[in-house]
């Protein structure tokens, strides 16, 4: 019997990087050469920047290989398995020596991601072997009362991980207090925030932990039916959830008298979202599950009193549910030991943008943003200058470099004007234009506004028009004041979170990068060289080889010159379309 295990990471990003082919290659090698090792699949371990990843675990220890394309897979298997000679150059993590990415995994605290990348997400047995379904089992065998479960969640101090930060225990308490023969537990997996992918990773990597969290919630509030509202854009997550649901039903973890608890009947179904960011809002999500347009309703009544089909309903985010079994198993105190005074536990962040190590990291609350980006994220790509980090997506804001020592906790992040949000962290460097970023988010919220509240529907439109004017070089004095006035009007007069937070990206960028706005408005310059209408394109006479490519591609024939002679751009004709810049192979088009 072999003790060597080869595991291939098959999450969405791994597959996109070619992990599927790597897996097939290793499988073929194992079969044709009759190699003696166990081949397993797992999901994302978070190190997206080194995908495809292959882990080899043998008697000596654990080795994770990075960038294992098909070709490299042959080499790795040949050397490591057949010749017992690990290839040090390709190893990114090992428990035996100091590999380049050891720090990335070792400085994290994995509660939510405790199983992601460590087990086969399509195997309930592997989940059970990692303390899976033991938390609900503990509740059943020790006959822990409902209120006691809720008290544990309250004591742990966990707050909603979807962005709002409302204490989860309190939500459960309200839902429990409203008596009804029918009650619902909904898992919000409508991760619409562009730039955030942690929920997808949890669902793909550890679907059973979410189901177990929902079962515990159902027990606590006496719910009869569960719904997972998942984005249709996540086909792999939906597939793995369906497998997990079937396995759980077969084992009797869903159905009637679950875990021998008399009268505890509960089942879960998946509801595919149809693509609307506003459905991340509780009441809009409920409307969507009911088959209607996802438009928010007035609160109160809160869903805890009157939610899905007007019955008491408890809605939590994927990440929140994934925490629950761990809290029940390890106790409230163990969870509360991590974090700050008002934000307990850990938070998963999706690091993306201009950061070297983009991927998924889970850190204890209270770590500074700088540490997340530089210690875990490996700093900025191509050693450019760190400018800002965007947190909270379209509802959040940009935190400038000089505030990077802000700690990660709900209240500290809120104080900067951004929000914790669901955990997207998009890093920006000196080549990112903050006005352009604000415009990007506002364009998003404008399209996603459901249209119910006038201020959100029309206000975002008007703000976008002003921003477009500014980036087109037609900004006028007073534009910033107008933007601010509109922003506060929208915040004050919108019903739901989408409208109340939509102006945040604009407000934070005006607050921290006012000079950049002013450069656009008064000097007609884009310091980051992003807003094309404000740029001047010229030919570097030294570098130009006279290849005629830009000349041929220029749609307005603004470029003149002979073959092998430096070209020239006529500024009166140039429309700043940028075609010459992207076509030039010699970097001889200069922006200024």
């Amino acid at each position, binding site marked *: 019997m072999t003790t060597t295990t080869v595991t291939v990471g098959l999450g969405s990003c791994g597959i996109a990087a070619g992990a599927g082919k790597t897996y097939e290659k290793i499988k073929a090698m194992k079969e044709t050469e009759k190699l003696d090792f166990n081949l397993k699949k797992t999901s994302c371990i978070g190190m997206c*920047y080194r995908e495809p990843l292959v882990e080899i675990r043998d008697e000596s220890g654990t080795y994770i290989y990075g960038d294992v394309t098909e070709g490299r897979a042959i080499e790795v298997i040949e050397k490591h398995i057949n010749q017992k000679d690990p290839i040090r150059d390709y190893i990114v993590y090992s428990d035996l020596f100091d590999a380049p990415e050891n720090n990335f995994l070792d400085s994290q605290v994995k509660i939510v991601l405790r199983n992601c990348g460590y087990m086969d997400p399509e195997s309930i047995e592997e989940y059970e072997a990692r303390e899976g379904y033991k938390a609900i089992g503990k509740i059943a065998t020790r006959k822990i009362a409902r209120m006691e479960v809720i008290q544990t969640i309250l004591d742990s101090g966990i707050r909603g991980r979807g962005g709002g930060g409302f204490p989860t225990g309190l939500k459960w308490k309200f839902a429990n207090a409203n008596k009804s023969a029918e009650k619902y537990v909904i898992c919000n997996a409508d991760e619409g925030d*562009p730039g955030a992918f942690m929920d997808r990773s949890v669902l793909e990597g550890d679907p059973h932990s979410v189901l177990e969290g929902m079962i515990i919630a159902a027990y606590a509030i006496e719910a009869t039916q569960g719904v997972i509202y998942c984005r249709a854009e996540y086909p792999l997550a939906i597939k793995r959830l369906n497998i997990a649901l079937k396995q759980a039903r077969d084992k009797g973890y869903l159905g009637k008298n679950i875990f021998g608890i008399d009268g505890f009947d509960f089942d879960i179904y998946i509801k595919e979202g*149809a693509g609307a960011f506003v459905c991340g809002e509780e009441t809009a999500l409920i409307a969507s599950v009911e088959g*209607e347009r996802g438009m928010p309703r007035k609160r109160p009544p809160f869903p805890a009193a009157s939610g899905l089909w007007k019955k008491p309903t408890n809605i939590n985010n994927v990440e929140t549910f994934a925490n629950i079994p761990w809290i029940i198993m390890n106790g409230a105190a163990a969870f509360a030991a991590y974090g700050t005074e008002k934000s307990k536990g850990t938070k998963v962040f999706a690091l993306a943008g201009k950061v070297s190590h983009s991927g998924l990291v889970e850190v204890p609350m209270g770590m500074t943003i700088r540490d997340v980006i530089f210690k875990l994220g490996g700093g900025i790509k191509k050693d450019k200058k760190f400018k800002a980090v965007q947190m909270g997506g379209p509802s959040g804001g940009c935190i400038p470099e000089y505030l990077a020592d802000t700690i990660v906790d709900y209240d500290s992040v809120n104080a900067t004007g951004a929000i914790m949000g669901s955990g997207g962290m998009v890093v920006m460097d000196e080549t990112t234009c903050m006005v352009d970023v604000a415009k990007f988010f506002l364009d998003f919220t404008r399209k996603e506004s459901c249209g119910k509240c006038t201020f959100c529907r029309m206000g975002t439109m008007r703000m976008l028009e002003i921003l477009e004017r500014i980036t087109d070089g037609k900004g006028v004095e007073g534009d910033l004041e107008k933007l601010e006035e509109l922003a506060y009007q929208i915040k004050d007069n919108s019903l739901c979170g989408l409208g109340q937070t939509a102006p945040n990206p604009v407000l934070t960028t005006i607050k921290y990068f006012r000079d950049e706005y002013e450069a656009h408005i008064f000097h007609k310059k884009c310091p980051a060289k992003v807003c094309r209408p404000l740029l001047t394109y010229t030919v570097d006479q030294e570098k130009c080889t006279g290849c005629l490519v830009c000349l041929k591609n220029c749609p307005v024939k603004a470029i003149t010159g002979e073959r092998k002679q430096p070209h020239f751009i006529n500024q009166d004709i140039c429309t700043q379309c940028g075609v010459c810049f992207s076509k030039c192979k010699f970097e001889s088009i200069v922006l200024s």
Partner: protein
Amino acid sequence: MRIARFNIAQNNIELDPVNLELIDPLIRKYNGKKGNMIPLLQGTQEIYGYLPRMAFEKISTETGLNLSEMFGVATFYSQFRLKPVGKHIIKVCHGTACHVQNAKEISEALEEALKIRDGETTEDRFYTLESVACLGCCSLAPVMMVRDQTYGKLTGNEATKIVKNIRITESN
């Protein structure tokens, strides 16, 4: 309100002849169930690739769902399409991470190469070009998805090449 699609006029809905019997099993499955409107539309779109006008009418008459409410739902969610699409949909990601890494260049290069604009279908109905909010592969930004395969770390030229190659391999 989804202002982006504000301009869809009723008469723009395609009147392509489609085999309406295909949705019979779907109607039987969901008829009378509460909250059935979105699953019905999703199922219909899965069959035809879009929502044909005739299908709206058939579902309405057979299930009693209100035609205007169905149209309201169909235009609200970005998943639903009212026009036929190409054989393959090119989804260019415009999430935050892709945006700051120049996703615009990818879209522009493809628009130029395919001679269509964002949201349109090529004349031979081979490709439909779409911008999507986020594909969740932010670490590989900028990305696009064609035939359920994700391509990452793209440039405009590479994207154009991939799209051209797919057309060549499939026409052989």
